[in-house]
């Protein structure tokens, strides 16, 4: 016995050390996904009811096969991109590769459009719309956060005085708790006509707005177009919550991007300089490609995080904005907290989980070429 202990003491120590963490994480981090799947196929109000099979999914998606068709459409779309990047330089005839990938793209768009329309017709409209809203939220907030973050990182990279101070202030919004930050935004973006913000935009010649209390879409407010469906864009209320997301994360991204900028070896720049490259060329040919792994990492984690945005949206929600701020997390929370439909909410969660995984795959495929971690 003692021999055994002595021989394997290293291994036993290892397992012993990770045991508490693995126990808590598997119980509260991994087990819930499987249990959520189990819940989603039962009738579950507050307590477990009878077995339902896929009835909950049917209610949400209308027809489950059109959901899989939708996922297939997304995968074909990714495939068309993969096909193009993989074969454009390998085959002699570039046009055929281009044509084939365009064909796949069109096919995928048709499938997505068709399956989405059929889900909309028979499924739970509130849930499907909440997916569109969260897509708006993620797409606009992430692109702006990373774009602006890059601009700020670039500014910080110059020889400046007070760099430490700027960095400290930049992280300030990031550490501000979302409920308190949301409370301030709730007042600043209030509906009072004489509010500071409305006077500020009035100074630039704009009409006062209702901000968080406005459910009209941006396209309607800015251009007077009354569009419906996916291309209508986010409502003004949702846009305000996007602004909150940008406010709180841009500085954080800027700090990470700055760190990425500073590890690019300087001899690369000197080489480019002696070759007579312009600043723009240096930026697009050296800086961006070398930053790509970090940008990829930020986009991936950012997308997954912003799909889960919850606290500040719940705080900033107003009844006059209607459902236009009901992103998917709010929708799920609403189902099991207000309406006590546990099984239904669990099914919605599983669908969200599947979609997030497809997004993760697609981002990996898109940036695969630019990833070089070594």
């Amino acid at each position, binding site marked *: 016995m003692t021999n055994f202990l002595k021989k394997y003491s290293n291994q036993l*120590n*290892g397992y012993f*050390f*990770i045991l*508490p*963490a693995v126990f*808590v*994480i598997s119980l509260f*981090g991994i087990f*819930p*996904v499987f249990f*959520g799947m189990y*819940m989603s196929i039962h009738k579950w109000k507050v307590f477990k009811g009878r077995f339902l099979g896929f009835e909950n999914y049917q209610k949400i998606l209308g027809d489950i096969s059109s959901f899989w068709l939708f996922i297939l459409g997304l995968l074909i779309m990714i495939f068309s991109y993969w096909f193009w990047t993989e074969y454009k330089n390998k085959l002699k005839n570039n046009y055929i590769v281009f044509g084939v990938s365009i064909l796949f793209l069109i096919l995928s768009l048709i499938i997505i459009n068709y399956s989405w329309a059929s889900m909309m017709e028979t499924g739970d409209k509130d849930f499907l719309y909440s997916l569109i809203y969260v897509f708006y939220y993620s797409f606009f907030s992430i692109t702006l956060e990373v774009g602006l973050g890059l*601009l*700020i990182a670039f*500014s*910080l990279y*110059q*020889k*400046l005085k007070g760099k430490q101070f*700027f*960095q*400290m*202030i*930049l*992280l*300030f*919004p990031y550490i*501000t*708790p979302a*409920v*308190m*930050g949301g*409370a*301030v935004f*709730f*007042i*600043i973006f*209030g509906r*009072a006509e004489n509010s*500071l913000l409305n006077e500020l935009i009035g100074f630039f010649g704009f009409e006062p707005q209702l901000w968080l209390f406005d459910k009209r879409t941006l396209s309607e407010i800015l251009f007077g177009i009354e569009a419906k469906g996916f291309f209508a864009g986010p409502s003004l209320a949702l846009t305000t919550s996007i602004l909150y997301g940008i406010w709180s994360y841009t500085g954080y991204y800027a*700090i*990470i*991007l700055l*760190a*990425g900028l500073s590890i*690019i070896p*300087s001899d690369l*720049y000197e080489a480019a300089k002696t070759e007579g490259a312009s600043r723009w060329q240096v930026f697009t040919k050296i800086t961006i490609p070398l930053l790509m792994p970090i940008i990829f990492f*930020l986009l991936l984690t950012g997308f997954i995080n912003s799909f*889960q945005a919850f*606290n500040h949206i719940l705080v900033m929600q107003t009844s006059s904005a209607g459902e236009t701020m009901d992103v998917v997390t709010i929708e799920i*929370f609403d189902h*099991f*907290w207000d309406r006590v439909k546990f099984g239904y909410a669990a099914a919605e*969660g599983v669908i*969200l*989980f599947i979609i*997030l995984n497809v997004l*993760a795959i697609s981002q990996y495929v898109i940036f695969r070429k630019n990833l070089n971690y070594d």
Partner: protein
Amino acid sequence: MIKFNYKELILPYFILFIVVVLSIYPILYMISTSLMTSGEAANQYLFPKKLMFENYVEVWSSSNFQKYTINSIIISSIVVLGVLCTSIPAAYAFAKIDFPFRNIIFYSLLLSLMIPEIISLLPHLLIIRGDIFPLPFGPSWMNTLQGLTVPFFGNVFIIFLLRQYFKKIPNELWDAARIDGSTHFYFLRKIVIPMSRPIIVTVSLFAFILAWNSFAWPLLILTRDDWFPVTVSIYSFIREVGANYNLLMAACLIAIFPIIALYFFTQKFFLESISNFGIKE
């Protein structure tokens, strides 16, 4: 890198100036409004005519808010302690001890970062209610301190950050310690932890902020206000009809004060580890 010359530097300064103003404006707004009378706050004045420090006293002495703030401090501190107790040994084992399936276990833990929190919320609720398996310390953890804290004792992200740091500690140190008859536990306590103070401070702040921020979970499991944290109380404050904005802002300011204070003391470490975070080893 594309360096700007002396004259062109005005552009980055200008950008950063705007960013700084926008970043701290909401906090300045909070401070200024919290010092107004309720009439001034409702009309969104820029500055108060007379500084109403009484607002803070009024918010603080309304007995419940005091209790909620203390609750938040207790909850967050326990979460920080719990996270450190599970994460430091685990990160050390993943970084320094060689045992079978080490990497498989680590990467499958990392995968759990992909799981949206909203999915876990519901099963968590059932676990805490004691529906799935019997719990120690009582039939149900609803409305209890352990229910608020224990689910957050494991944090993959923090293990990841700690492991990155521990990996940099040279193996020779352990070899030397082992020859002197040291155990892993002793080595961890006497050498590794003192060497890793910056990262431990950072992850503690991180865990503290996360716990201070927690909102959906307390909203779900608390039906009485014994353990209400500040976030929940501020949320119900906003939802009140005709809430006084000046008092609301005073409450918010009190509620973010601990976070800001901690941040100022630890920002150097915090900044460093965030900068290192995106860069793979």
